[in-house]
């Protein structure tokens, strides 16, 4: 079956151990995670995972079903690039000497709309946000000058182009369903 790059968005309760369970869904099926980004979401007490992975349509459906099944996972969904706006941040640490001596580098930096955020005698730091291909392309061009001392990229952050992110609506409806029950079980941990 044809492979594609999928982005998986998971919302979970903010408790220890959920990350393990999320990643285990991939490793158990021998599917590699390309990037993984975990942060607080816009909802208090809810964490958001953005994961990219290259696999086929059947596998991704099963993986996401297994992730959703975890008790503390609120929702999990998968998307193709066409359904997303996605960005990554990358930082490139360059040798200041080479940067000064090679004017072509400045042109490249402008071409990619990258920013220099630090300059000292030894090294300079370049920051760029963009899609995966742009970040890689800048890296390749800089590499030709043998100037890169360090390179790091953040992994993907995304927003969906559809009106996804009904997590708060979902939680609200869940809470309504159980008006009578005490506060959400996790309130004591919050």
């Amino acid at each position, binding site marked *: 079956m044809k492979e594609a790059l999928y982005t998986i968005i998971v919302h*979970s*309760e903010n408790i220890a*151990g959920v990350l*393990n*369970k999320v990643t*285990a869904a991939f490793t*158990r099926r021998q599917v590699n995670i390309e990037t993984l980004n975990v942060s607080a979401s816009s909802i208090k007490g809810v964490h958001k995972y953005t994961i990219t992975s290259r696999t086929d349509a059947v596998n991704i*459906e*099963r993986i996401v*079903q*297994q992730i*959703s*099944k975890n*008790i*503390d*996972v*609120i929702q999990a969904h998968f998307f193709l690039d066409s359904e997303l706006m996605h960005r990554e941040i990358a930082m490139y640490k360059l040798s200041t000497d080479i940067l000064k001596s090679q004017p072509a580098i400045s042109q490249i930096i402008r071409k990619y709309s990258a920013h220099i955020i630090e300059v000292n005698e030894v090294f300079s730091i370049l920051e760029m946000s963009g899609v995966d291909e742009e970040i890689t392309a800048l890296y390749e061009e800089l590499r030709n000058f043998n100037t890169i001392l360090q390179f790091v990229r953040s992994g993907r952050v995304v927003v969906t182009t559809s009106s996804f992110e009904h997590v708060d609506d979902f*939680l609200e409806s*869940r*809470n309504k369903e*159980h008006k009578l*029950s*005490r506060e*959400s*079980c*996790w309130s*004591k941990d919050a």
Partner: protein
Amino acid sequence: MTGGEALLSALEDHGVNTLFGYPGGAIMPVYDKLYDHKEKLNHILMRHEQGAIHAAQGFARVSGQIGVCMVTSGPGATNTITGIADAMIDSTPVLVIAGQVGTKMLGSDAFQEVDLVGITQPISKWSYQIRSAADVPWAVARACYIATSGRPGPVVLDFTKDAQIGTLDYQPTIVDFIRSYVSNPQPVEGSLEQAATLINEATKPFMLVGQGVLLGEATAELEELIKKTDIPVGETLLGLSAMPSAHPNNLGMLGMHGNLAPNKATNLCDVLIAVGMRFDDRVTGNLETYAPQAKVIHLDIDPAEFNKNVRVDVPILGDCKQSLKKLTALCAPRNHQSWIDSLLPYTEEEHKVVCSKELRSTSDGSLRMGQVARLVSQATHDEAILVTDVGQNQMLSSRYFRYTHPRSLVTSGGLGTMGFGLPAAIGAIYGNRQVNHDDKKPVVLMTGDGGIQMVIQELGTIMEQQCPVKIVILNNSYLGNVRQWQEMFFKKRYSFTPMENPDYLKLSDAYGIKSKRVVSEEQLNEAIAEMLSYDGAYLLEVCVEKEGNVMPMVPIGGTISDMLLEP
């Protein structure tokens, strides 16, 4: 009160009255408090932690209530792992309470420390470390709710020593809502109607019944649907007993060692209705050739089961007790007698070629496993609770026993855990008492000589607790199932499957358990009668044909409807 005592009170508040366990250093504060709770909590001291978890599983499977197992940290906890994995794959509600080193010692490789939460995360429905006494009532409540709601499963509480010793102001706590966990999901709108249309238009519908029907207590609803629609039924191994064996629409067991007619029906039907089952590979055989002609309707409470193995046309999410009821209302009365009649020749063929042989002794007078199983079943008027081990004993007992009431088969299906049988039978005794309040329905363990030796120490528990388990060892001096595969697929190279046995009568004697050995048909009936009428545990060693095979069979990866009737 202390966290340890709070744990016991919380269990009592959740209706728990039986524990299976084994004490040790890191759980001693709880055991100390248990000394004062002996009246309300009947603790069964097993002889190994693996025995404790399997007993808890046996208890849960028969009673439908949560089975509780309590062990110490480190090796005590790791000894329960097999049972936790078994309970996960067979959807059994069990709670494992394990001691853990003090919070200050966590992560220091302390004596008997193991990362139990880390180990059990992939094989449990929920695992949680209790680090403060104040957490106890909530943790127990949440664990009980998760284990028993939705698709049931095992939960683990890793109980640090300082949380056991610390104090709290105990308040009874109930958890019946977790916002991220929908325990009672509802069908997607229109799915029931779609399914009913398919069923109403079907000329050859066929239903697959799994353990979900038993877990959802939906046997009456299933019966109603079948009565109205006249659909023939096949059951998974764990679904056996969801429907009486004698029901005219019941074609028998599905899968690798199931019956011929239901496996044929799978690939002949036009609509396949799967209820509370998960299309295990032992049920489906080769997925490419599994029911390609049929529209598939799948009823399950776990959405992750839809399209996992078999593509589903109409998924019906939710509790099958409700879904079956609604489906019955939407379905039109039908008569499928000619379709059912068209399948009868398969049943007759299987009987002629396989069963009639398996139900009698060999030409040189050796007993066969199926023969023993059927005679035991008959002697109990098909009223027994059958517990099996794993292997040929399991397949032949489940095939030739007959079932008259729900939850009367306890067996390790998904994980296939050898050594499950004996401790599960002990648990089944207590599970039976829990719901039926007496021992009138006998608990019969059908085991092999291999499986029982994995857990033979539990004869000590039977001795001490006077557990009236009727143990039938089908002794062929082989690891029979593996030997059968060696015979069929490995050129009869019997690599480490012949097995020398101890003298089971002497062993029973040492444990004060009444016993008998039989080798022939003449002795068998009388011995079975004696075993069943005896007031107490009884071990019946039946020496059976050494190289018997479980037939029919679908070889691994084979097409389900192409069963081999002979090896």
